[in-house]
């Protein structure tokens, strides 16, 4: 699964994207964020407030309870500030 990070999520983790295979027990976007937060200090910092993290699966906005099965690309990022 390709993971993409943007804005301060990207800065805190230190990479813009990576390929990771979470264990089968990680089924939802929310669980994926929790699993990533346990991967080390930079991830813990990026996901210290999981409630503010927004997510997209295959470039479509999704909610934390969305299942990640079948996802090619999961993006995690802060609330958007365009316009």
């Amino acid at each position: 699964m390709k993971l993409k990070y943007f804005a301060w999520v990207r800065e805190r983790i230190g990479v813009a994207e990576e390929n990771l295979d979470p264990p089968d027990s990680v089924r939802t976007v929310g669980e994926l964020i929790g699993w990533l937060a346990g991967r080390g200090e930079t991830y813990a910092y990026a996901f210290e407030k999981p409630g503010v993290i927004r997510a997209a699966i295959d470039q479509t906005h999704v909610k934390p309870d969305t299942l990640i099965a079948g996802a090619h690309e999961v993006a995690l990022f802060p609330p958007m500030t365009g316009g």
Partner: protein
Amino acid sequence: MSIPVSIRIQHADFDLAQEIATLTAGRTDIGAVVSFSGICRGDGGLAAMTLEHYPGMAEAEIERHAHEACARWPLTGVTVIHRVGRLTPGDNIMMVLAASAHRQAAFQAAEFLMDYLKAHAPFWKREENADGSTWVAAQQHDDAAAARWDKT
């Protein structure tokens, strides 16, 4: 007849007058064009801002919303240009154009697209000032502004 929808994300500046001319050229069914230009402000000692986006998703999401605007209002054309990269105070950030036979449709569509872009389009701003740089925090009133268009 399909409605011309043009979505561009680019580093370069844009020319609003040229975009209006393109949208209206050769047509006599357009009575109203509303434009919104977002400009980089220099408030609070801002030296520059850097805009990051999610390539692919940003274009697709804006295009989806532009087509939704065309379904909701009798539009004759929509153009959205959003810049990315480093911008300084006074620089254009983005623009939305909505054209229609009637003014209400053009105003409503332009506001709808702006509210959407502020709250949901995958762009992020980082601001630089004398103290360093910080990511702009999302505004709750932007979420509220976007939610007023939700169909119940």
